[in-house]
Each structure stands twice: as C-alpha cells, then as structure tokens.
C-alpha cells in the first residue's frame, strides 16, 4: 500500500506543474496592463514604470513564472486590491465557511442519494424508482442560482421558515469559540446550543441548494452500480445460502456497489467548488466563493487566479485520495 501511495503521488507531480503553468498563463492573457490598473488610468508614466518593476513585469516571461512559483512556495498568492489584504489572509479567514458548507452538502447528498439509489435498484420499476429518476433528471438540469433564489422566495419570503439569507449565524449572536472554524462543530463542542441552532438554520438552505446536483448524480450512480452487483453470481450464492435479503443487500451488495459511487463523489467535488461560488453569492455566505464573485465584480484578478489554482489542487488531491481509498478497499487495483 505504501509503494502504491508513493507511486500515485509521483504520478501527480506533472499534473500539479501543469496546473500551475495554466493558471500562470491565464493571468498573463489579461487585456490591459496590470500596472496601469493598479496605479489608475491617470497615473504618471514613472509611477507605472515603478510598479511594473516592483511586480517584476519588466522581466522576461520565464523569469516571471519562476518568481510566481517561488512566491507560491512561500504561500504568497498576491494582493487583493478590493479588500486591501493579501489573498492568503483573505482565504484563511473565509475558507472555514466554505468547508463547512461543502462538507454539509456532501453529507446531505450522501445521506439522501445512497438510500434512494438502493431502494430504486432493489425495487426496480416501482413508483419509488420512477420518482427518484424524475428527481435525478430535474436535479441535473436546474441551475443552482435559480434553485437558491427559489428556496429563498419559498422558505424565507413566503413561509418565513428560514432566516434572512445573510451570513452564517444571526446578527445578535456571537459566533462560537473558534476551534475548527466550523460553526456547527464549534458550537456543539462548546455546548452553545443557541449558536448551534442559529448556524444550522443558516446553513441548511444553501447546503441543500448546493447538494442537489450531486445528490442527483450519486443517486443515479448508486442505482446502476447496485443493479450491476445484484445481478452477479455471489449475490445469488448468498441468497441461495438462505441469508436474509436485508443482509444480502447491506453486507454483500452495498460494499461492492459503493466503490464506483465513491469515484463519482470524488469527481463531484469539482462541481461543488464551482457551485460554492454561486451558492455563497446568493446566500451572502462569508466564504471563499462569495469573495471570488466580489473579485470578479471588482475586476480584481489575483483572488480569482488563486482560487482557480487552489481549487484545482484541492480537486486533484481529493481524487488522489479517492484512488488511494479505492486501492485500499480493493487490493487488486494496487497491483495493476
């Protein structure tokens, strides 16, 4: 297993380098001179020249790339002009909110989609199967930004069940003591149940909104891989031995059907990162996604570039992790 892990890590290095190269290239096709943008249109030529020298823009391209990589290793992702802070500092402030939202969405998606997929597969062509299929079809084509606004309209404007779509916790409460950065976990750990209730009520709508696409795809995947497993000989053997149907499904079939579903879940992580940008914007969630939208509106490229880089790195790491778990569950994969 150790050798396999090292091998997979080694294979990842060229991709990581490629990701860095592409994010660098994207930052250089920007129309307009970044130095002019920083100094303002009316700035003196000498001022612009100074900025250009400070930013290293007078260097040849490969030197600029080299400087970019060196800065990356120092954890320097550039300056965010619209906040006046370094991007790294802004990210550090805002990432916990995004992680909480994303993790909670994955949790919802898995808790709903896997049972739904199992029921749909074991009761094929039943009403439950048809409902889950319609749901999957709709879940895959409804844009997340529309769904979020509809949620706000129904659950906040009409029914009044959810708090105003603003932030992670209601304004008259203090956030729980910072331990993990996740309000739900921190408030539970400190026994602050008022904060827990408030942050849960703020989290639930954006999390459901973000999870729908993933839920639809995971449910579909779970159904088809479950159907495939159920048709195999070892399931027939298990049934022939007289094992209770519930155990056949939960102990024999489920474990095998989960493996391909896990891969799909890993791939969904990329969708969740993109979806977080939109969801956070709609619900004024103080995470990295909303920050990226603000940067887009302020034409501030460094945070966008940093988010692109960080999300690609995270995405690659998650998929590596999925591969490793895969190899751990199924030893045959390691020896290929």
């Amino acid at each position, binding site marked *: 297993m150790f050798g396999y892990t090292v091998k997979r890590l080694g294979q990842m290095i060229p991709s990581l380098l490629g990701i860095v190269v592409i994010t660098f290239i994207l*930052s250089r096709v920007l129309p307009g001179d970044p130095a002019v943008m920083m100094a303002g249109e009316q700035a003196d030529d000498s001022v612009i020249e100074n900025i250009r020298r400070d930013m290293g823009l007078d260097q040849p391209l490969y030197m600029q790339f080299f400087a970019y990589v060196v800065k990356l290793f120092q954890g320097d992702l550039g300056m965010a002009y619209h906040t006046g802070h370094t991007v790294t500092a802004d990210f550090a402030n805002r990432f916990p909110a995004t992680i909480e939202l994303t993790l909670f969405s994955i949790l919802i998606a898995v808790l709903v989609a896997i049972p739904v997929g199992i029921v749909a597969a074991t009761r094929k062509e039943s009403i439950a199967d048809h409902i889950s299929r319609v749901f999957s079809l709709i879940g895959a084509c409804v844009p997340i930004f529309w769904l979020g606004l509809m949620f706000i*309209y129904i659950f906040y*404007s009409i029914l009044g069940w959810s708090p105003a779509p603003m932030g992670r916790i209601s304004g008259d409460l203090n956030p729980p003591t910072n331990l993990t950065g996740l309000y739900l976990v921190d408030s539970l750990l400190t026994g602050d149940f008022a904060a827990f209730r408030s942050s849960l009520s703020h989290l639930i709508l954006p999390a459901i909104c973000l999870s729908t696409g993933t839920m639809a795809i995971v449910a579909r995947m779970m*159904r088809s891989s479950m*159907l495939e497993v159920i048709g195999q000989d070892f399931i027939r053997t298990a049934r022939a031995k007289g094992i209770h149907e519930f155990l056949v499904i939960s102990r024999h079939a489920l474990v095998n059907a989960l493996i391909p579903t896990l891969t799909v879940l890993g791939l969904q992580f990329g969708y969740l990162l993109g979806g977080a940008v*939109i969801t956070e914007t709609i619900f004024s969630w103080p995470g990295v996604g909303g920050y990226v*939208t603000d940067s887009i509106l302020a034409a501030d490229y460094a945070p*966008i570039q940093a988010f692109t880089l960080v999300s*690609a790195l995270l995405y690659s790491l998650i998929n590596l992790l999925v591969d490793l778990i895969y190899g751990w569950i199924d030893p045959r994969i390691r020896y290929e």
Partner: protein
Amino acid sequence: MSETATTLVPNPVPQPSARADLRKRQTFARLLLKNRLAVLGLSFIVIWTLLAVIAPWVSPYEPTLTDTASKLQSPNAAHWFGTDNFGRDVLSRVLYGARISIWTGLIAVAISLCIGVPLGGIAAYYGGRLGSVIMRLMDILLAFPSLVLSMAIAASIGAGLTSAMIAVGIVGIPEFARLMYGQTISLKEKEYIEASRAIGVKDNVILFRHILPNALAPLLVQATLGMGFAILTASSLSFLGLGVKPPIAEWGAMISEGREYIISGQWWLVTFPGLGIATSILGFNLLGDGLRDILDPRLRSGK
C-alpha cells in the same frame, strides 16, 4: 491530391446500398420516436429553437424597451410574465434570451468540437510523444473544476458574451478529445484502415474521411449533452457578471438582475428565465441520453 487518393481506394467496407441506407435511417427515426423521454427532450429543443428564431416577430414588446410607469408589475393580461424593475416585458426578454442561450451553446460546442476532435484524433493516430503531450494537457485541463476554469478564462479575457462562449468552449475541449482519442485508438487497428494506409492514402484523409465518420455517433451524443452543459455554464457566468452586459436579455443575467427583488416577493423576474434555462437543458440532456441508448447500446445509461 487527396481527392485522387480517395477515389483510388477500393473501399474495403461494404457500402450499404441507398435502400439499405434509407431503411437504416427509418429504423433510427423509429427508435428515437419510441423513446418517449428523447421525444420529450427533442420537443423542448424544437420549441425553444423555434421561439428563438421567431422571437422578433412574436415578442409582444422590445426586450430592452423601458417603461418606468409600469415597472415591477406581476403577470397580467398586458404582460404575461410581468415586468421587471425597468418596466421591461419579462416574456419578451425570455424569448430573446433563448436566442442568446442557444447561440452561445452552439458556438461553445462548435469550439470544443473543432479543437477537441482533431487533437484527440491526432494524439491517437500518431501516438508517441506528441500523443502523450496532447492527452496529458487534456488531463490537466480536466483537473480544474469546469465552472471555476471557465470563470478564470472568462475573467482573464474580459467579461462579455464572446469571452463566455470561448471560455465554455475551451472547458469542453478535453471531453471531445478523450472521446475521439478512444474511438481512433480502436478504429486505427481495423483492417480497412490498414488497407488504406498500405495503398498510400494520406494520414489526414484517413483521419477525416475514414475514421471520423465511424466516430460520429458518440460525438453526436457528446455534442448534444455538451449543449446542455454549455447553456448552464454560460448562464452561470452571466449570473456572476462574466457574460453578457446589460441591457441585453440573457437568462442568467436576468436572474442576476431579479435577485434583489425575490426577497420582496417579485418572483416573476427570476422564475421565468430560470424555467427557460431548466427546460432547455432538460431537453438536451434527455435527447442526449436517448441518442446514446439508440446509437450505442453498450453505453446504455443505468436503466
């Protein structure tokens, strides 16, 4: 030059007669019509395309005509879908929005196809270092979450409809390249390709006249599904402020503009363009799934 080369080839693939060809086409149409979901999808597409084409004639108002006296009216007889905060007719804007969305989808998919297919074909056909460099590059593009990458591209080119099309198009390239790569790898070992090569047919003729036609079915499926993806991604970019500029009527931008009115209860600004996006994507997804079932039974989706 290449023309003469092809005419010299005694085509080793048995050519279906015109009648057999017609029969094949009829079977295809019948299979498609038998697939109820695909028909539903096709009808959504046909309706939206038709509405997009005839929008200038059927729209009750100019999509950009402001009329502050009748702003934020709920749906009524004069304005079926209501009016927005500038008093513009939401129905007319939704109809004109269909033009932009479908057009954006077509251009974006065309970009992905025209770059991805040759890249994948060349990588598979020539293989070697060139092939692995191309496919490695595709893998790296796939390492970016697609919406995030299209945001980064659109933001770096500068907001606008064209840059949204380019961004969505680039993000779609790897899928087509991988598909064409897989097809070419399996086709290039076939006897008729070896035969063509043996008698000296040029590589580009083999790729585009002999391999490509045999890879059309999966490419068609991917292009149909890609339309849905492109419409969704482009409208997301517009929603984030990276697509069309106001006052152009575009579904994603309309939802973005209607956003602040949802809390005060003016639901129609957001609901109708959203239904436009959802039904058009649903149409392409259903048709794509249906085409896949018909054209490639091996890839049958989990039914």
